[in-house]
């Protein structure tokens, strides 16, 4: 999902760099103020850990294999602010040392994978845990669903940036990125849950110590994150409505062209259900998204149940 150089236009580059700088700045301030100094070296080592863990292969089918993205894992194990700093370090090192991810697109990549993804993961993780409880199974369920949501959030943000740059059409890129990452997100969810389950079994306090010590300031971080995402939408909307293709075409066809002024939010992804798509594409898109989320939640629930099942003493080796 790393955007290389040469794909995004100057407007998008500037907007994403600004938003990424704000997000990273707030996270750095949060870490400096509220993280005990004891945990500061862990951020650097955890960044190296995420990089190493991304090198592990998870075979899928026919010789292909997937790998971890790690934003949700970092958010669950480190908390949101430290996760943002660690993921930013990962992306900086990847682009500066391995030319993986562009230099001009660094702002966009940091925004998608190091700001939006951990914040989305953390928000969902907190929300699910506040409803489902803080037991092992609930923690794993929250982790899995958070990983799926963060993958989707990052992918859609990336799609919005590519489309706003005018290099691909809105419908194409949102449909492609949305549908592909619905599946990739499931893989990310299962991998993240498996890893967190191992940590929970070996050193449960490593998972819990990153989480229940949530001061009201962390709630502020989440609020900043939400504001950031809304800011992104608002910033992108004028670009979207000024595009000659895609969105305007859709707008004219469905007769809400008059609404497509500055406050028009970015469209929802177009991974629509086929029969419904012709009559009511918006409804179909919403339904497809909800269905995907439901499937992800169900998968997370089943895996969490299987992983949290008490192991019989003799069955362990």
């Amino acid at each position, binding site marked *: 999902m*790393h955007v*290389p*150089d*040469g*794909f995004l236009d*100057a407007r998008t*580059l500037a907007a994403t760099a600004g938003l990424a700088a704000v997000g*990273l700045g707030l996270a*750095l301030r949060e870490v*400096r103020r509220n993280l005990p100094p*004891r*945990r*500061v*070296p*862990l951020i*650097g*080592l*955890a*960044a*190296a*850990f995420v*990089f*190493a*863990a991304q*090198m*592990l*292969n*998870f*075979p899928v089918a026919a010789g292909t294999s997937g790998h*971890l993205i790690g934003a949700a894992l970092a958010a669950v*194990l480190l908390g949101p602010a430290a996760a943002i*700093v*660690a993921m930013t*370090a990962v992306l*900086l*090192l990847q*682009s*500066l*040392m*391995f*030319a*993986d991810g*562009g*230099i*001009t697109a660094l702002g966009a990549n940091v925004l998608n994978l190091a700001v939006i993804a951990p914040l989305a993961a953390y928000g969902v993780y907190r929300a699910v845990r506040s409803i489902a409880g803080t037991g092992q199974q609930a923690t794993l369920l929250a982790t899995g669903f958070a990983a799926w949501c963060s993958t989707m959030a990052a992918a859609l943000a990336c799609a919005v940036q*590519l489309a706003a740059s005018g*290099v*691909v*059409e809105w419908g*194409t*890129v949102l449909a492609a990125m949305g549908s592909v990452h619905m599946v990739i997100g499931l893989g990310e969810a*299962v*991998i993240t849950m*498996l*890893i*967190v389950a*191992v940590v929970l079994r*070996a*050193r449960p306090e*490593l998972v819990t110590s990153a989480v229940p010590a949530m001061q009201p300031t962390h709630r502020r971080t989440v609020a900043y994150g939400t504001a950031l995402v809304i800011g992104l939408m608002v910033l992108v909307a004028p670009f979207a409505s000024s595009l000659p293709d895609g969105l305007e075409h859709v707008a004219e066809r469905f007769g809400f062209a008059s609404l497509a002024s500055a406050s028009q939010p970015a469209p929802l992804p177009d991974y629509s259900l086929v029969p419904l798509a012709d009559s009511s594409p918006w409804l179909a898109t919403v339904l497809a998204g909800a269905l995907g989320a439901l499937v992800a939640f169900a998968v997370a629930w089943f895996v969490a149940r299987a992983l949290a099942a008490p192991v019989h003493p003799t069955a362990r080796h």
Partner: protein
Amino acid sequence: MLRDRFLSPYQHGSSAVHRWPAGAKLLAAVGCVFLVVLLPRSAWWAYAAIAAGLVAVSLAARADLRGMLVRLLLLEPFVIGIALLALLKPGGVPLFLSMLTKSTLCLATMILLTATTRFSDLLAVLWRIRVPALLVTTLALMHRYLFVLVEEMERMQRARRSRTFVAGRTSAWRNSAQVAGQLFVRTSERAERVYLAMCARGWKA
């Protein structure tokens, strides 16, 4: 072996390019990348000139051209993957070609930079230009322990492989997750020791 080579892009050398100050090289590389990105899509002569410049600098650095090419080809699939989406747009072929050229030139620039400049020197530049200290510390620790953790991970995988004879897909997932989970536990224990060692040497947050 391939992994070792991939993890250390820096090629030792004593050419003039290697001896240029890291700050100047970073500035030149970033400037070149921005120039390529901001050039009009059909500025083919400018692209050719920049490519010629990159080749000239590589030759002056007596860099391992084959290694750099392999690195470029390994990164190219990601570029092509995104660029292909542009082909679906009506009249997308020139757009596709120009994006591919731009991205490839930028990749080549960064590969050349990392082949001739140590990452620790780049970190020193980031420190000097006042990138927030916490971020530079994090980057420095990450770079320092990256190789330690990757080696630790490989030892764990080797130990697992020497004890496991059947490798189905499910067990492969479980094993990789086991390695990653254990690696995180060991990483956080190591971070505690690193913190104590840093404090013993007078480090202040």
